[in-house]
């Protein structure tokens, strides 16, 4: 069959697009390789989605998003999309298992994954002390010392979660003393927590250990001084990178791999939209992903009715990529 709307990715952006599309009586399907919920489903610490603040968790809220889309009839397909054919009236996506699905409009919601630091030892010691998921791995580090790399919202909030398990959390921050990238509320909570230790003006040069993490080589970027912190775990939270490799050459991406869109979530191809963390935008949160999803589904509906062209022009893209950071 040919769906009206096919959504690639079941994070908050994709799930919201599914709910809006189905509610508009369009045949709407979401294809997802893993479990619904995206990155939000991997963190228990979530207290900034409006209306959900009493003991709510990422998986909890995402479960509600999924149920909401299902309630209006969104079809859930399982598969890892590796190929796309986006030109023309009927578009298609193909999975790694070789299954092909067709639709007249596509909403890309592939999301992002944790960015790696790219230092020696990081790849080799993943799963052996190097982690990108506090809820997955915190248990292993009970009464041990760990390092957290990064100082954004995710880094500080995940570090806070880690303090429930570990002996100490040392946060390596590139900025001057007292300066964090996270929101002020989280910063204040972190500074008041006695399990935190701080290493300022510093970057990680190497993660050391043969079979398990034994230490981290940090460098003070002001003085050039290097020293080793003896720890058993390294948690990396330095932002994300968009999962858009499968779209290279098929759609316009910016130099970082994000998908530029118009205000209506239109990409450079008619009938193809992009939402969520993989889109070039200012703020990547569950609430903004959900907003993107609602807008894309409505724009796709108008496109399917033949009212609009539904495409970002070359000029639009130039203006957008110029403005992007």
């Amino acid at each position: 069959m040919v769906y009206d709307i096919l959504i690639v990715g079941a994070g908050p952006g994709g799930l919201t697009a599914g709910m809006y599309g189905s509610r508009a009586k369009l045949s709407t399907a979401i294809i997802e390789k893993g479990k619904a919920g995206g990155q939000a489903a991997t963190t228990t610490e979530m207290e900034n989605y409006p209306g959900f603040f009493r003991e709510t968790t990422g998986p909890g809220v995402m479960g509600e998003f999924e149920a909401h889309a299902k309630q209006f009839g969104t079809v859930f397909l399982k598969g890892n999309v590796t190929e796309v054919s986006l030109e023309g009236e009927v578009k298609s996506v193909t999975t790694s298992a070789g299954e092909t699905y067709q639709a007249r409009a596509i909403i890309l919601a592939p999301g992002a994954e944790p960015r790696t630091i790219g230092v020696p030892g990081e790849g080799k010691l993943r799963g052996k002390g190097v982690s990108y998921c506090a809820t997955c791995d915190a248990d292993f580090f009970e009464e041990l010392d760990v390092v957290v790399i990064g100082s954004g919202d995710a880094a500080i909030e995940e570090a806070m979660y880690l303090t429930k398990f570990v002996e100490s959390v040392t946060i390596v921050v590139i900025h001057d003393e007292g300066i964090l990238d996270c929101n002020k509320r989280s910063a204040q909570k972190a500074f008041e927590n006695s399990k935190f230790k701080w290493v300022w003006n510093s970057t990680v040069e190497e993660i050391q250990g043969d079979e398990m993490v034994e230490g981290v080589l940090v460098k003070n970027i002001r003085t050039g001084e290097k020293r080793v912190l003896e720890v058993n775990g390294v948690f990396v939270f330095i932002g994300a990178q968009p999962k858009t490799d499968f779209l290279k050459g098929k759609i316009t991406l910016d130099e970082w791999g994000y998908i530029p869109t118009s205000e209506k979530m239109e990409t450079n191809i008619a009938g193809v939209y992009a939402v969520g963390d993989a889109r070039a935008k200012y703020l990547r949160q569950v609430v903004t992903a959900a907003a993107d999803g609602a807008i894309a589904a409505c724009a796709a509906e108008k496109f399917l009715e033949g009212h609009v062209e539904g495409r970002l022009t070359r000029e639009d893209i130039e203006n957008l990529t110029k403005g992007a950071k």
Partner: protein
Amino acid sequence: MIELNKENFEAEVLQAEGLVFVDFWSEKCEPCMALMPEVIAFAEKNAGKAKFCKLDTAGNKRLAISQKVMGIPTLVFYKNGEKVHTFDAGMIDSGGIAAVQKKLDELV
């Protein structure tokens, strides 16, 4: 799949002849839970080619660490009690269960 724990790990994995597959997982780990249905399907499809096991790391933390597993999901192949290949979370994310299938076919 065989549920492993402190009591049976030695006999089922380390003393076992032939190929043994172990999925290190825990309920708190969302990526592990997302992967689990695929792992079960993989085990069913390949029944007879190896012994398929899973280890809940909650409650068996020391056992997991003794196997040099400090992050999950992790999938490990043992052959005659020796660890022969490990898939960490990153490898699972990029290669999917297809990569694990390929490794199994190589090892059989």
